[in-house]
């Protein structure tokens, strides 16, 4: 196997781990703010790691640039949406969770 494959396999596994963490947080966290945190951070890092692995394996700089652009777009979109949803939830009177 070429060296890029050896580099991309750990990235893929780490990406899968972070997606799994995001899903578990989505299911286990107590309120909408903490779920937003799991969804928008862990999943975006997982997507970044998987994109990194695909960049290593991709043939051609156009494809690599496109993969990175997709990741950056998802990052910007999800961060914006995270703030919009969290602010809307606050305006609607949902109190952030506190340790009981």
């Amino acid at each position: 196997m070429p060296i890029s494959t050896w580099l991309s396999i750990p990235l893929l596994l780490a990406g899968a781990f972070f997606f799994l963490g995001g899903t578990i947080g989505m299911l286990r966290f107590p309120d909408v703010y903490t779920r937003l945190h799991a969804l928008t951070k862990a999943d975006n890092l997982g997507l970044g790691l998987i994109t990194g692995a695909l960049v290593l394996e991709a043939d051609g700089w156009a494809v690599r640039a496109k993969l990175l652009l997709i990741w950056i777009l998802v990052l910007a979109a999800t961060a914006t949406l995270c703030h919009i949803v969290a602010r809307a939830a606050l305006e609607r009177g949902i109190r952030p969770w506190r340790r009981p």
Partner: protein
Amino acid sequence: MAEAYMALAAFLVVNVGAGLWRVARGPTPADRMLAAQLFGSTGVAVLLLLAEAADAPALRDVALVFALLAVVAGIAFVKLGWSQDPLAEDDHAD
């Protein structure tokens, strides 16, 4: 490598399926919408993996559209789909 990509894509689809539990459970409308966002970010990863595994570059464009649609859907939900009434229900049940 194509098999590894396919396996990882299948694993991510299982993740999305687990997120469906949150859609059913709620409790607030925002929680249900968040599961749709999970579909957005995980779906992008699945499509990018499939584009590489199946050698179908058009799927990367589909991933791009998914990324855009997820945020548009979220903003439409906040502005139109979520009523302004303060929610009396307890959000910290579990």
